[in-house]
């Protein structure tokens, strides 16, 4: 089984989206950059927080609130680890959805031709 055979959509016998394509998708990279960069800038210097950091601020903030309730001894900077993992998960999910949509759009175009 190759990487290209990894993602098979339900109800199909084709291999529409490969791992490599999802990971290098502009949607994946763009989402990751948008989630991490604005928040990291604000984390380094508060004056650089901007509205673009709001989604990550909410994600990181809620993560620390839950973590603090469960395990109050951890320093807050440690929450960067689950935060980055969450950002990767969200980015890959959006990248997969985008590539799948592109694949379907291409197929529809071919059928019309």
């Amino acid at each position, binding site marked *: 089984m190759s990487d290209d055979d990894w993602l098979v959509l339900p109800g199909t016998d084709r291999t529409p989206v490969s791992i490599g394509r999802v990971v290098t998708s502009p949607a994946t990279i763009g989402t990751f950059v948008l989630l991490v960069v604005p928040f990291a800038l604000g984390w380094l210097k508060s004056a650089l927080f901007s*509205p673009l950091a709001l989604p990550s601020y909410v994600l990181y903030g809620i993560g620390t609130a839950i973590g603090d309730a469960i395990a109050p001894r951890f320093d807050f900077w440690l929450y960067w680890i689950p935060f980055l993992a969450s950002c990767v998960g969200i980015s890959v999910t959006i990248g997969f959805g985008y590539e799948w949509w592109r694949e379907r759009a291409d197929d529809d175009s071919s059928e019309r031709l």
Partner: protein
Amino acid sequence: MRRRTILAAGSALAGTVAAGFVSQPSGDHRLLTAAREPGDAGETNTNTERLLPGTVHETRLHEIDAPRDGPTAMVFGGIHGDERNGIAVAREITEWHPDAGTLVVVPETDRVAVENDEREGVDGNLNRHFPADREPVSELARGIWDAVETRDPDVVLDLHRSLGIYDFHRQYVGQAVFHSPDAHGDALADALDDDSVPWYLPFHRFTARETDLSGPLLFQKAARELEASTYLFETTEFLLDQPTRNEMTRLAAARVLELHGLLETGGDA
């Protein structure tokens, strides 16, 4: 594709920096200018004295008399020695110019803790040394309380910082204004939200909470025994850097002085 991705990432970076600068709250320059510059009524007169002279706790108290009569306010920094925003801002306040009344400032209340950059000094946590119905329980606390009783302040403001956010992180009390029943806690929190908390940092909005006066904290004892309007201000280290914490603390101090009539901002300038 790679070039386009890099361009997009660069644009996002530039955009977020620009958006950050454009959408910052403006602060309140009028209020801070009124605090830093002498008013129309004339110059202030400052007197500095030493508390607990000749002891390990020796620290400075600055008393600033405004040209007009008015209430007496006391501001404390450094009750916890590692909460640098309160120390830095209290030092600044020693050079402020109230328009009315008397402003008394102790920037390094627990001087040993401040010098060691630690929360507690030689006798432990100073802000647990002012129990109800008893004398303060340490030499330092008694010295501080003597200075408070002597001035009999109308207003007391104690400056602190926490590691997390009150009502959000279970064990922390940051971004909160604890106050005595007759103080302007809600007005102070609302003003701080307007002046210093961007709308896109909603967890950092300030909370006002009336305090239980039976506790062993300095601001509780001052409210309980001297019937002063008292505040304990807490900002947070969570996602806020030192300059931002200092600015919030500075605005809190200036707003308290304005709310109690020591500072005049000249109306809607």
